[in-house]
């Protein structure tokens, strides 16, 4: 057989500047940075210095265009995650893929899109499949540049007179990804082959339109197809609005000024970040490890390879050096595994970035300059840099969120040292419970959903006040819990109630913001698969200066209930679960099965009509010794139902009595006296730290730990000689001791 030889395609002109390919531009940019320490070798910033008004005007044009693109485009979406919660964002990039400016929203993705663009450049997309005006690319591959499959990028190139002058990128979070189980972040499978629809920097459209074949593939691959397809159009529209704004800006200021601006703005961002580090922090080293449990040894709903108990180890360490560079290291992190919580380097960069923009680098002129002023060390083979390319990453956030809780706390210590007390936060709460699932919905249709009220957790205590209740997510500074009615329209589950969870805010002189809980009843559906996710056996965060962590989570589900009888006979029914030691659910409802345990992270479970599902969110960590809390604040918490009465004395040393009208009243004099006694009692009960170390050394020598703790130590030491040395040195272990 003879193959027909196609005529050679006409050689195309390079699309980069001055006759270069865009890959040559990227390599040159990296070389200049390595040689000079300045972005693109920009030692001088003549546009900013000589024409500051013009410089600021260009920035304002672009920033305004990005915010406008987001606000306008989200109206195309039908997904409550996008429309109500605001899980989308847009950004503008240089030809090499470095972000210049961004919109509001889930800005964790500003750098992940940068990674995706650079992947295309490095892998010669210019030649095949080509980078041309009107092309549309899509990516949701976290190993290339993304957080997880549910976050889908649309990326378009922007050309001016034949040259690539940048890229516009947008991202939305999808309701379902067509994974092995319903929901946007399904898990329980072993590897990537269960992750759902994977799109890897694919050319999915030309001439400003999607390929119909791509949209068909999306419709055929995911459960909530309407939402997916409309979100595709949302992102593409936003990108086109950005491109139009870039064109308007260039027409006004000229292409040369535009090109100069995009370089200078990133170098200015880098310098600004370093300047802020030196202005606000203290040089040195900061340690803040965190942990997350995966209690799956006996969970038959997950893949056999995933059926084991795991404790994730995130030994976060921040180093700030003489010149103001900030390094973040995870040396000592334990190994990746056959679950969906592994984390590629791109989302780790994204997480660092989104946190910095909320504390240290919180001006509107945020861009990849911060990326060039920092470095992140991610041990190869660990959960945060897997050496197996096809790990599952659908729920990367499960490790990533607790993994970074120490960062805000460590920066708080740095602000304390410098005297910027108003900037100190005890940290953030983990954004759990994650409720998602699917099945035949209340309209009789196969469907899937992800409930995003988890966007509203309690915030960490500040140095001068309590944290705020139920309002924030570390990954989206504009978190919103959404209307219950909207979620009820999407999900076949009625809200029995939604309320503040007592004792969820971490104790302290200033307590963490309160978390909330919702109680849902399955309604008009015979079959739903539901997930719950979050930390249950551990705290995912910690307090600061004597403050305690906010609440950990638990699972409470009731199957085969008598809710129809309760409703028919108009008997009292639970609105929430409340105090878990006096559960409203268990006391008011009878069920064939009352699942009530610490397995907050559980695989996909079947639920039927009138089953109950409690969704417990988190309170923020606390700051300072609880015995230093103003007794009047304790009284206020008692009367608001934020603090269960039995903890007023044990934690806060407060003597309070309930009056006839039901209100609590603190006895200030008795409280002061009692607190003095409690401080003395502490010293009596506590031991010298050196004695504790000696005592615990014996435990270490006997390897007296449960399996997940023991294996965590084994894994961290196997991957990191330096962490092993640290462990051995602290416990003064003999060299021939093996763990």
């Amino acid at each position, binding site marked *: 057989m003879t193959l027909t030889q196609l005529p050679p395609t006409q050689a195309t002109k390079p699309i980069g500047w001055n006759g270069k390919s865009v890959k040559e531009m990227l390599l040159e940019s990296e070389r200049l940075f390595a040689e000079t320490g300045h972005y693109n070798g920009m030692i001088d910033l003549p546009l900013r210095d000589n024409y500051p008004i013009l410089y600021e005007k260009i920035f304002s044009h672009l920033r305004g265009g990005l915010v406008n693109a987001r606000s306008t485009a989200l109206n195309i979406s039908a997904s409550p995650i996008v429309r109500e919660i605001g899980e989308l964002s847009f950004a503008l990039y240089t030809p090499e893929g470095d972000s210049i400016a961004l919109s509001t929203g889930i800005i964790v993705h500003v750098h992940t899109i940068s990674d995706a663009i650079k992947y295309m450049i490095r892998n010669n997309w210019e030649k095949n499949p080509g980078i041309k005006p009107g092309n549309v690319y899509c990516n949701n591959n976290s190993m290339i540049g993304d957080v997880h499959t549910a976050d889908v990028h649309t990326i378009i190139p922007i050309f001016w007179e034949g040259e690539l002058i940048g890229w516009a990128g947008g991202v939305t979070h999808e309701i379902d990804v067509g994974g092995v189980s319903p929901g946007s972040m399904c898990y329980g499978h072993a590897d990537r082959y269960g992750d759902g629809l994977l799109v890897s920097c694919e050319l999915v459209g030309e001439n400003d339109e999607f390929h119909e074949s791509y949209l068909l593939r999306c419709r055929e691959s995911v459960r909530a197809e309407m939402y997916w397809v409309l979100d595709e159009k949302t992102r593409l529209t936003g990108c086109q609005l950005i491109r139009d704004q870039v064109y308007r800006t260039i027409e006004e200021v000229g292409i040369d000024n535009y090109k100069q601006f995009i370089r200078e703005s990133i170098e200015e961002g880098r310098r600004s970040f370093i300047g802020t580090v*030196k*202005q606000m922090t*203290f*040089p040195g*080293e900061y*340690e*803040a*490890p965190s*942990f997350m*449990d995966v209690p799956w040894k006996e969970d038959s709903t997950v893949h056999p390879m995933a059926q084991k108990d795991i404790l994730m180890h995130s030994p976060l360490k921040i180093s*700030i*050096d*003489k010149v103001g560079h900030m390094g973040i290291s995870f040396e000592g992190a334990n190994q990746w595994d056959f679950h969906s919580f592994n984390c590629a380097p791109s989302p780790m960069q994204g997480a660092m970035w989104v946190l910095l923009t909320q504390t240290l680098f919180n001006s509107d002129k945020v861009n990849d300059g911060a990326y060039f002023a920092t470095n992140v060390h991610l041990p190869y083979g660990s959960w945060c840099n897997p050496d197996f390319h096809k790990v599952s990453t659908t729920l990367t956030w499960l490790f990533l969120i607790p993994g970074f809780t120490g960062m805000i706390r*460590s920066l708080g*210590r740095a602000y304390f*040292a*410098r*005297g910027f007390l*108003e900037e100190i936060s005890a940290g953030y709460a983990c954004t759990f419970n994650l409720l998602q699932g699917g099945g035949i919905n209340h309209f009789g249709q196969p469907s899937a959903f992800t409930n995003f009220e988890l966007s509203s957790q309690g915030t960490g205590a500040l140095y*001068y*006040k309590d944290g705020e209740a139920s309002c924030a997510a570390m990954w989206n500074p504009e978190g919103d819990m959404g209307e219950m009615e909207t979620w009820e329209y999407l999900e076949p589950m009625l809200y029995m109630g939604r309320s503040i969870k007592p004792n969820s805010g971490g*104790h302290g002189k*200033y307590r963490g913001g309160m978390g909330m809980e919702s109680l849902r009843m399955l309604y008009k559906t015979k079959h739903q698969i539901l997930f719950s996710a979050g930390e249950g*056996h*551990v*705290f995912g965060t*910690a307090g*600061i*200066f*004597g*403050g*305690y*962590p906010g*609440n*950990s989570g*638990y699972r409470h589900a009731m199957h085969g209930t008598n809710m129809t009888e309760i409703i028919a006979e108009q008997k009292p029914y639970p609105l929430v679960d409340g*105090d*878990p*030691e006096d559960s409203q659910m268990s006391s008011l409802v009878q069920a064939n099965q009352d699942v009530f345990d*610490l397995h907050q992270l559980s695989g996909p479970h079947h639920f039927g009509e009138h089953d109950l599902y409690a969704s417990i969110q988190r309170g923020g960590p606390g700051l300072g*010794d609880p015995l*230093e809390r103003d007794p009047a604040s304790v009284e206020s918490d008692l009367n608001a139902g934020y603090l269960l009465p039995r*903890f007023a004395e044990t*934690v806060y040393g407060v003597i309070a009595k309930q009056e006839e009208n039901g209100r609590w009243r603190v006895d200030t004099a008795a409280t002061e006296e009692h607190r003095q006694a*409690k*401080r003395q*009692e*502490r*010293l009596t*009960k*506590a*031991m*010298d*730290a*050196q004695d504790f170390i000696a005592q*615990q050394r014996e435990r270490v020598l006997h390897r007296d*730990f449960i399996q997940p*703790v023991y294996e965590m130590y084994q894994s961290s030491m196997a991957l990191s000689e330096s962490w092993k040395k640290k*462990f051995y040195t*602290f416990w003064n272990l003999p060299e021939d001791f093996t763990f």
Partner: protein
Amino acid sequence: MSVSYDKNTLRQLKDGLLPHDTAHRMQSSYKDADRFQKMLEIWQESVPWDDKILMPLAEHLFVVIKPDGRRIIKSTWGYEYCEAHENWKRYAKVFVRNTPELMREVYPDKLGADVNWMELREFYDPISGVLLEVEAVPPGYPFVHDIKPDIDTFYNDWLGIPVPEAD
């Protein structure tokens, strides 16, 4: 833009007495270049001893310079823990919540940790009994060294002044 706050305002911020909207404006405004020095003076006024404070290390803990030149971590109540580069927790009093009963003194059942997976270590000042830090770590985890400050770099390179000496 030049911003500065009087010591009374900063003292109110330290003591939690500043109106929240004022503190919020401080968050949103440009930072004041003299904050470190002013806060150092405020901290120095707040402690009952005379050793010169080099930096505030954590709530109720300071690095001070001793007459012999040693940099020591010292508490509000005068307990001297160790040198600045060491972890003060090694010299504190510690109480560990490592049974379900002890965990339930602080958290309702199921809202705390399973003590087989994670314990709470409470570090107290040996003089006052004030709780200085709470670690939430698995059993067997080395003490967390929260902050190891580089005082020389800070003074010499960032502030451009020599590290203060004892009076």
